[in-house]
Structures are given as C-alpha cells and as structure tokens.
C-alpha cells in the first residue's frame, strides 16, 4: 500500500495511464499539482503561452494518435481560457481530459480570487465533468474521466480539483484502478444484426448508391474495414471534412469530400443517389444544405454510435446504433461472396459520375501565370507535391482551410486535422505543435491565414522553448478571406472589417523568436521556398506566401438549395 498526496496521485495516475505529454499553464490553484509534476520525469509537461493553445495542442495530439489528450490549467482565467478549446473538441468528438485547478473547497461560492464555476461554464460543451470532493477519490475519478473521454462517442471531460484536494500534507492510499464501471454508461459494442442484414440487402440491390462517411469512422479506427467494404462493392464514396483520409482520396472510387465547399461530383452524386450509406457522419448543415431538399430520391442507412445523431436532422430509413468498426466488419462478412444485384444500373451510375468529374476537370480554378499574384490553390497543390501527400496538415478556419482540404490529397486518416464543427480560428498552430511533439519524424504543416495565425501566434515562444519544428504556411491575402467572400456574394462587396490593416512584418516577427521565415511573392519562388523549408527538418519555418485576395472558394452550395445547387465559379452555377 502506497500513501500519496492528491497532487502526487495525479502525477502518478497520469504515468500509470500512459500519458506522455500534458499541455498546461500553472497558477495558484494548480501549484500543488505542478510541484508533483516537478518531482517526476515520466510525464512531460509542455508550457504553452495561453491556455487555449493547451487544449488545441492536446486536441491535435488526440486527433493524430486516437488517444485522449491531457490539459492542466489553473482555476478562474486559466480554466475559462481553455473553454474555446474544450468546445472545439466537443463539437468534433475528440477525446480529451482537462484538469482544472479550483480554489480550496471552503472558498467555493465566495467569489474567491480566481474562482470560476468551470463545471457550470463548460456544462454544455463537455461529455461529462467531475468535481473532486475527497483526495481519496482522485484515482477513480481520473480513470472514469479517461474512460468516458475515449469510449463510445468520444469527447472532452473536465475534472475540477479544489486546491485542498491536492494538499501535500494529506496522504491517502493510491491504487491504479485498471477498470471502472459506471452503471449509467454502457456504450454499445455492436449494431443490431437484423438491421445490419436489412442494410446489406439494400446495399446489394442499390442502383445508385453512395457511401457518405464521417469522423466517426476515423475515431472508431474503422478506416481499413471501410476501405475493404467499399472496394468489395465497388461503390462511390464521399467523406465529410472530418472523415477525410478514411478512404484513400487518390482511389477512383473516392469522390472527395462533400457539402458546402465539397466537390461537384460528390454533391451531384449525393443528390441523385437512390441509397446513401452514412457511417459515423451526422448530416450537419454544412453537408446537407436545405434538409427539405436533401437527396430527394435516396433511402438512407445511418450507422452511428450516438443514437441522438440518428434522425436528428434527416430521417434514417435504416438506423443502426453501433460503433463503425464492428458494424462495418459485420457488413463485410455479409457481403462476402455476393455480388451487387444490378451491375448494369451500377455501371450507368458510374458513367454518370465520371461525366460529372469530367465536366469540372481542369476548371476548378484559374492558375495564374508568372508575374500575376499566386493563387492559394496552387500553393496547396505544390505543397502536397513537395511533401508527397504524406504530411500531417492542420488548418485554421476560413478560405485557407477549404483550399487545404480541396487541394491536399490524403490517402491516410488522422492526417488532416481541422476544426470542423466549431470552426475555431487559432486552432491550427497549437494543434500542429501537439502533433509534432508526438510525431517528431513526420512533417507537420499548419496551413493558415494571417487572420487565424494572429489569434495564437504567441505559441512561437512555446515552439522555441521545446524545439518544435512545425512548418507554418501562411496564405497571406491581407484579409479575412471567407468573410470577404461572403461580403462579395451577399453584401455587394462591402468589406466590413474583413481586411487586415497593419499586418506585422511576419519575417521580422518570426526572426525575433529565432526562427526562419521565407517570404514568397512570385511564382518562381514558391517551389524553391517550400523545398528549402522542408530541408530544415526539425526547425520551425514560417512561409509567408502572398496570394490573390480576390480568389473565392468554389464549389459553394447555394443557401436554402439542395446539395446539387452550387456556385461553380464567380460566373457559373448549376
């Protein structure tokens, strides 16, 4: 039997749970815990420069590795600064445990210094939260927190720890709980076999089927199974932004991603399909456009681990509650040895899809000529080529995010890391930092814009302290591109506060931190600059790339329309 203080229990538990990195920022209420971390070497603490960055870094790590990220912040402002990152993780179902210091129990409710009811503040944006009420319950509560964060539909869990719970003088027995049980929480482990059989029969009889898969396949680690199933059937597949890479995008059956700025062929195929097989996707408004006009001729099979996602916005004809992995495996075993019933209809369907593909080939954007401003699309395409499509790519939010998703081609899951649900500007750079620390041998790129980057650029200091060699690709158009695009389309080009005056000289700024920055203004400089940046294997390099501010992201679904109603360029629409 081992007697430990609450603070030492936390440090010990993190080690026993296999946590390698925690991201955090110290402060009064968390100091006992920090002292315990100081006296051990197993868990590495990364000191960020703002608590929001800690949550994004832990989030990035979680998205890349599939394991829960860990954050440690102090009470009050420390905890409230973490809120945006918690909400980001919640919206995208990312496993994360956030340990928050709290004022001592006897002060709670007295408006004490740095007191915030963080459990109350975060209630709508967590999977669950705990308040520690006795030091002896720390190991069990932490185990529950990690179990809840990572199982079922994953999500962030907040643990509120009053300072007296971690007092060094009070020691209690510590045993690492290998397992915990919660009587009210039993995530499903497999889907209903009858429903799966019914779904497979519909799939085999389909004439115009489309797979539509989302982040649930990635977090459910079901990408291999999905690829197998889709290839056995030979059906087209489109993924959500969150599902990018679950199926190799370079394969012929991949239509790319769908929705507001999704590919023409994927949105067209969805609209004309007679069967949609949705797995781990939630029919959100950036995918469906107007739900009353959504896929008018399709029956819908919907597989999701969260029953509340099913028939939330679009009614499913065959709902299947279960984890993507086991449902897909069961589908594969039912499909085995059988052929689709309508090969002629399917080949007609493929002809139609190839037709849509052909329609837009070479027309996605107008590449500029030397002497003209670079197009952001060109930059991403070149970046993809230079890194052979193998890098981890994080993004912030806006036009650059869509261009990154459209023009970098991913054949592997967990490589495109973006804030899909919440759309958090400032996410990309700290997320990249969290990934690079755990994947030091891989290229980790943050594609960003000057608007988003300035929201979290203080993390340059963290990268300096811990030698984090991420590459930052700043698509600099001197404006908040996506806002500007909407203002061009809906507000007669009245650019209300979507321009960025007084941008810093990024080169000088980056150099002040001791890093390399490369400014690219001309075509001919792009590829050499990228080559140079990636030759600096383990160093942070910032590429300040000036791109055409007039460029818009297309296709773009027309508001209130169906999936096939799209603007295809500034002058064309479907």
């Amino acid at each position: 039997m081992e007697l430990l203080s609450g603070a030492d229990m936390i440090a010990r538990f993190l080690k026993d749970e296999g946590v390698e990195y925690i991201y955090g920022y110290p402060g009064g209420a968390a100091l006992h815990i920090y002292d315990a971390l100081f006296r051990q070497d197993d868990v590495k603490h990364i000191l960020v420069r703002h608590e929001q960055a800690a949550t994004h870094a832990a989030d990035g790590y979680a998205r890349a590795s599939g394991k829960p990220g860990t954050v440690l912040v102090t009470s009050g402002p420390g905890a409230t600064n973490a809120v945006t990152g918690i909400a980001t993780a919640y919206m995208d179902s990312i496993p994360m445990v956030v340990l928050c210091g709290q004022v001592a129990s006897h002060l709670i409710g007295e408006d004490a210094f740095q007191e915030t009811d963080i459990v109350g503040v975060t209630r709508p944006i967590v999977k669950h939260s705990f308040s520690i009420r006795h030091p002896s319950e720390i190991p069990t509560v932490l185990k529950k927190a990690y179990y809840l964060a990572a199982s079922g539909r994953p999500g962030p869990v907040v643990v509120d720890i009053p300072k007296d719970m971690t007092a060094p003088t009070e020691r209690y027995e510590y045993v690492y709980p290998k397992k915990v049980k919660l009587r009210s929480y039993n995530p499903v482990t497999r889907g209903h076999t009858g429903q799966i059989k019914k779904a497979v029969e519909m799939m085999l009889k389909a004439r115009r089927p489309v797979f539509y898969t989302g982040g649930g396949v990635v977090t459910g680690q079901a990408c291999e199974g999905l690829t197998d199933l889709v290839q056995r059937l030979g059906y087209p597949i489109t993924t959500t932004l969150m599902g990018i890479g679950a199926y190799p995008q370079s394969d012929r059956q991949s239509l790319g991603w769908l929705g507001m700025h999704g590919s023409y062929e994927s949105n067209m195929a969805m609209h004309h399909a007679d069967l949609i097989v949705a797995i781990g996707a939630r029919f959100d408004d950036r995918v469906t456009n107007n739900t009353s006009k959504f896929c008018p001729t399709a029956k819908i099979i919907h597989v999701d681990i969260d029953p509340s996602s099913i028939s939330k916005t679009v009614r499913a004809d065959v709902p299947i509650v279960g984890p993507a992995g086991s449902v897909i495996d069961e589908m594969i075993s039912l499909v085995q040895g059988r052929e689709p019933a309508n090969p002629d209809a399917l080949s007609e369907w493929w002809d139609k899809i190839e037709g849509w593909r052909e329609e837009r080939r070479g027309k996605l954007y107008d590449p500029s000529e030397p002497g003209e401003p670079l197009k952001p699309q060109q930059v991403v395409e070149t970046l993809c080529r230079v890194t052979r499509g193998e890098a981890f790519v994080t993004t912030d939010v806006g036009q650059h995010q869509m261009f990154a998703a459209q023009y970098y081609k991913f054949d592997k899951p967990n490589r495109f890391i973006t804030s899909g649900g919440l759309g958090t500007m400032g996410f990309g750079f700290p997320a990249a930092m969290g990934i690079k620390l755990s994947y030091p041998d891989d290229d980790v790129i943050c594609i960003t814009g000057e608007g988003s980057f300035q929201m979290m650029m203080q993390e340059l200091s963290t990268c300096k302290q811990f030698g984090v060699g991420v590459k930052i690709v700043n698509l600099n158009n001197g404006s908040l591109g996506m806002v500007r695009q909407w203002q061009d389309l809906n507000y007669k080009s009245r650019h209300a506060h979507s321009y960025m005056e007084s941008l810093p000289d990024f080169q000088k700024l980056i150099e002040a931190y001791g890093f390399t920055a490369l400014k690219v203004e001309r075509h001919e400089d792009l590829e050499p600059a990228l080559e140079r940046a990636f030759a600096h294997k383990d160093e942070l390099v910032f590429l300040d790339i000036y791109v055409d501010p007039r460029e818009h992201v297309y296709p773009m679904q027309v508001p209130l329309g169906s999936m096939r109603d799209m603007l295809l360029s500034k002058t064309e629409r479907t």
Partner: protein
Amino acid sequence: MRHIISILMENEPGALSRVVGLFSQRNFNIESLNVAPTEDSTLSRLTVTTVGDDRVIEQITKHLNKLIDVVKLVDLTEGNHIERELMLVKVKALGAQRDEVKRTADIFRAQIVDVTPSVYTVQITGDAGKLDAFLQAMAPIGILEVARTGVSGISRGDKILSL
C-alpha cells in the same frame, strides 16, 4: 403533444443542472419539473412534462439517455399511467365566498388546510387538467397565491422503472 418523462438519475451534485441545461441548450421545452430522492438514496427521480412532436420527443429522450448521470428513463405517456400533481392555493374567503370556496373544494375533493378570517388555503391533488379546472373555478372568487409541485407520475400495472 404533451409528454411526461420520468428519469432515474444519480443523486449527485450537478446532475439536475445537466438535465435542465440540456433542455435550454437544445431548445426543448419544460412545462413542469419535479425531482426528489427515491427509496435508494443514490438515485433521484425527476419527472418532466414537455411538449413536442414525435421527432422532438425522440431527440429529448435520446439526449437525456446520453447524459452520464441519467440511469434510466421512461416516457410515461407511451402507456397507461397515473399522473398526479399537488397544488396549494390561497383564495379570498369573505362572507358568502367562504361557503362557495368550501363547496367547490368539496366538488373537487380538495381540502381546506388552513383558515384565517379572510383566507382559505386549499390543498388539491390530481392531474394537471383537474388542477387547471379548479383554478378556473376559483378565479372569480379571487386567487391570492398558487404553489404547484409540477407533475409526478408512474406507470399503471406491473411495469416498473427501477435499476
């Protein structure tokens, strides 16, 4: 349509706020709410009446079930059930009104539980409709104060909501 949903949940701090928060967060409706511990002190029973079409009610029960503190729930309106609410009403009782209040209370099988020279306090139980009808009957006489517990309910027959 109006639904009565009964929930068994962990008797833990914060559990109630999660349930109530869910309703406002998801834009669901709460008509009445009633909560107290059960015979098992680790469990509370919460009964909520809400209004919504089938799709909304399906979402409400799914989201409630997702809350970690919610152990089990039942939509009582899906089957035969007993619905009860307790109400205390203070009404004006002067002169001829005193008899009128007493008579009406008798008709509704309500009891007068406190008396002053000018006020009767009436206690009445029943479903929400009966309580509404009693208030309507008392309105011309003069209602001074109303305290309702909100609906509680239980299934008829052998059906049981327990662990």
